């Protein structure tokens, strides 16, 4: 693939959509968006929604960091300082988890991509899809009203007994989380059914892009785990309203039971957050290395394995909460099993990059940053899964740093990579490549500057969730605060680059990166019907027929000139009817 070459042979390219085909412009008016059943528009609405939620929660995070710039607190002053600090970090956590990370990749990118990648016209239940978006909005409204009422100071985990006695608006927030849970369930249910029954002829399970495998695994968790969160929160609301005595020790309830209930959802939820990120990275690494993914089946199976193993390890959040000694040992041992499929993925990505022709595009920069940051996040998790070290590190900044490496360094970075990767497809515009790379680099350094010092802080004994600290920790905290500002700048640059592209960006070709999955086979942006007829499904990671057309700055699929030969009759049965699942 040398630069400047013009591909010879029969060139296939879908071209550009007309205005009446383009899903963004085929109908006008705010109502055509509000009542749309088009999965792409719903995905875009989700994207806007989660970005707003992220901005709110990110600003709260900056407040926290700025407050911690001085040992006795820089921002919140007065007698209520600690209370305010509690509320700020709680809302930061709750909004980030429930409103941003969980819906970010599955709901925003997933909604846009799953049917297109699959070659389907829409998700199986378009109305349910819209319903789940509005449930998300309703949940967000509940959270905002909790914020406006009397805040929330329980931590995003709502641990009893504090949550049954705290006089902040726990019921509002938990109702919000309850509703968001159903939004998440419906999204997952929709994707499972879509992937099972809507595959066009030729799209067998092992021709699915890995993003779909990851989404499928995520959906399994969403369907199986989220209902338990629902009942837990419902019981918590009942506990607060009339003290049912299941979690409240005053009436013989057991707070450890609450933690079991809560983490039975919330640990698998960690995989709801990270699995789709794995899917994105698998696609990004392969496409931008222009090399077939290494170990396709292993990556696919490891997604499912993570989803299932993720249900066996929730107890590692509770090593110090008073579980039985045998239970802690079992959970600790099981925890290590999850690292195996995660490691399989990381090694496969590295093997994919090995001897690939890597284009250091913006999405690839994010993907490489992801591998680096996720590896640190994952490896530090081992210290927390080990009983002995966890007793020392529990509830310190080490934990904070660990999960931020996974959630921010992992999910957020992958989300950004995915957004940059599919942005041309979603909006039909190319962004400034240099601007994107700059953002990626600033984010990478800003992130590390923020959270690497926190590992040190934690192992030296700085507990989390404190509004003030000993002066000996000051310089590490200050490093962290400066890093967070840098991270904020990086994210702002990324946002500006993307927004700028909408107005000034070049028109995007159908296949700007040289991907082989189906979404690059339709126009950018896709027509509202996705595919006029069921597309021809090839190997999602076979790049041999894809060549760079430097004249038009695009990748095209090149078929060698052939004699006209009798073509085989394509299968007439849809893939779902072949009983191969």
């Amino acid at each position, binding site marked *: 693939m040398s630069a400047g070459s013009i591909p010879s042979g029969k060139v296939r390219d879908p071209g550009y959509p007309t205005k009446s085909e383009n899903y963004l412009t085929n109908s006008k008016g705010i109502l055509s968006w509000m009542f749309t059943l088009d999965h792409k528009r719903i995905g875009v609405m989700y994207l806007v929604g989660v970005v707003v939620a992220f901005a709110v929660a990110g600003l709260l995070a900056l407040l926290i960091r700025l407050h911690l710039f001085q040992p006795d607190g820089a921002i919140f002053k007065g007698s209520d300082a600690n209370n305010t600090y509690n509320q700020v970090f709680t809302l930061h956590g709750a909004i980030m988890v429930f409103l941003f990370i969980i819906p970010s990749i599955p709901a925003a990118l997933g909604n846009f991509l799953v049917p297109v990648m699959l070659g389907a016209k829409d998700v199986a239940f378009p109305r349910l899809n819209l319903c789940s978006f509005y449930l998300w909005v309703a949940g967000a409204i509940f959270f905002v009203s909790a914020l406006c009422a009397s805040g929330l100071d329980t931590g995003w985990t709502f641990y009893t007994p504090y949550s049954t006695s705290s006089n902040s608006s726990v019921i509002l927030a938990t109702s919000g989380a309850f509703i968001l849970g159903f939004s998440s369930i419906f999204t997952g249910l929709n994707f499972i059914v879509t992937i099972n*029954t809507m595959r066009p002829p030729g799209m067998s399970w092992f021709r699915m892009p890995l993003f779909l495998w990851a989404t499928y695994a995520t959906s399994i968790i969403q369907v199986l785990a989220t*209902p338990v969160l629902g009942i837990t929160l419902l019981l918590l609301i009942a506990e607060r309203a*009339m003290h*049912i005595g299941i979690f409240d020790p005053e009436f013989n309830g057991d707070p450890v039971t609450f933690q079991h209930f809560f983490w039975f959802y919330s640990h698998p939820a960690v995989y709801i957050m990270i699995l789709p990120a794995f899917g994105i990275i698998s696609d990004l690494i392969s496409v931008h290395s222009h090399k077939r993914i290494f170990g396709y089946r292993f990556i696919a199976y490891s997604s499912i394995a993570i989803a299932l193993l993720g249900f066996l390890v929730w107890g590692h959040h509770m090593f110090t909460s008073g579980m039985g000694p045998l239970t802690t040992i079992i959970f600790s041992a099981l925890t290590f099993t999850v690292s195996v499929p995660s490691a399989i993925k990381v090694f496969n990505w590295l093997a994919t990059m090995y001897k690939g022709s890597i284009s250091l595009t913006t999405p690839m920069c994010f993907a490489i940053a992801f591998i680096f940051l996720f590896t640190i996040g994952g490896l530090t998790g081992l210290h927390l899964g080990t009983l002995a070290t966890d007793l020392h590190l529990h509830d310190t900044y080490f934990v904070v740093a660990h999960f931020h490496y996974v959630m921010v360094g992992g999910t957020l970075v992958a989300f950004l990579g995915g957004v940059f990767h599919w942005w041309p497809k979603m909006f039909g515009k190319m962004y400034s490549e240099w601007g994107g790379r700059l953002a990626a680099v600033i984010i990478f350094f800003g992130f590390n500057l923020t959270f690497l010092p926190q590992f040190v802080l934690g192992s030296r004994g700085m507990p989390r969730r404190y509004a003030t600290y000993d002066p000996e920790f000051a310089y590490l905290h200050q490093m962290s605060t400066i890093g967070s500002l840098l991270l904020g700048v990086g994210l702002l640059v990324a946002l500006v680059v993307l927004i700028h592209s909408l107005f000034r960006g070049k028109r995007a070709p159908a296949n700007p990166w040289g991907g082989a999955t189906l979404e690059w086979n339709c126009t950018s942006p896709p027509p509202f019907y996705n595919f006029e007829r069921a597309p021809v499904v090839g190997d999602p990671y076979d790049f041999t027929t894809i060549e760079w057309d430097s004249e038009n700055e695009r990748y095209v699929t090149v078929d060698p000139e052939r004699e006209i030969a009798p073509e085989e009759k394509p299968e007439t049965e849809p893939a779902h009817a072949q009983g191969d699942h």
Partner: protein
Amino acid sequence: MSTIEAGPETAHSADGHDHDHPSFLAHHFDTPEQQFDSGKLGIWLFLVTEILFFSGMFCAYAIFRMLRPDVFEGCSQFLNTKLGAINTGVLLFSSLTMAWAVRCSQVEDNKGLVGMLAATLSCAMIFLGVKAIEYSHKWEMGLLPAGLFVYDPANPHPPRPAPPEGPWAIFDPAYWTYLDYICAPFALIFVGVVIWLIYSLVTANKFHLAVAKPLTVASMCFFVGVGLGTILESGGSESHVGEHHAGEAHAAADDGHDHPDGETHESGEAVAAVIVEPNTNEILVVGDESGNKDETAVRQRLATDSTNSGIQSEIAARQRQSSVAGTSIVTEDAEITGAIEKVESEVLTARQAGVFFSIYYCMTGIHAIHILAGIAVLVWLLVRAVRHDFNRQYFGPVDYVGLYWHLVDLIWIYLFPLLYLIR
């Protein structure tokens, strides 16, 4: 709104051989079968979420029952096995009619479909009516979730203000019983549906009439359930109890330790007497025994028939229940007294029995909410069935709602022995 006449045409076009999308086939599906398969997988997944949703409460149940089996055993005596069994039967029957409805939709027997859906709806309403009796009875006794638990073994039926005289007295919320509160929305719905029925009769709108008729029957069935519950709760001897004061009547007659008549003010007096003279257990015991005698006499006669094991267990349960419930602690049978006394002194507190009732209300309450949701979708189905929306290519919605309804039944199949039949 489409009319009945419009219905069969769509059905026939589906039977036809054209490859265009029939009206019931969504644009993104290729075949009706694909649409049906998608919906079916979707509903199965939804049922999976439902099971996991309930699993939280089953888990809580298992933990507390494992820790204190005696609490569960003691408190279970407060639950009326007869009502639970009747409700089980009603739900099983509704499952039958629902499965039958699915069959009707598959063989395009539209009349049967409407009938079966109406029967399912009616059963759901009866179930709720019986549940209303159970709940209101326990609330009046103060058998509430832990935080609100006010049950006083010495005084299980706290007095209520006597309702004032006058024809409009029942509309004064200050004197409403819990049962009245529960019944009020259903009464409103009933009145609304009847008005609708009359309106559609007057305007001779066939479609509205066809919908309103089964709905009238169904909403009336709630009160059938209330009546049934009242009769069973009060021991089956007072089938003549008045309608809107049924709750009070049965509360007064409960377990026969008050005079088993339906006169509310009298029962109020009886309880008031206990309040004034807490030491006059003799009065109560006398009333108690007289009450018990005529009731148990009938039952013991029935129980002599060895096949009637249901009654036998019922008597055993009743004896324990009445002894746990308080007043008949003062009985000559020292052996029973000792055992119960011990259980009672440990169990009947907010922190013990209260937790049992918390779990009871959570489980049955959320189950009842599912029944309500089922009623809503059944009404929707009924309207569509009357509209002739379903045919053998498009019966998905009936099937999906059916599956949901069976799951609700399935959960009750477990709830009933777990809550009512602990011995």
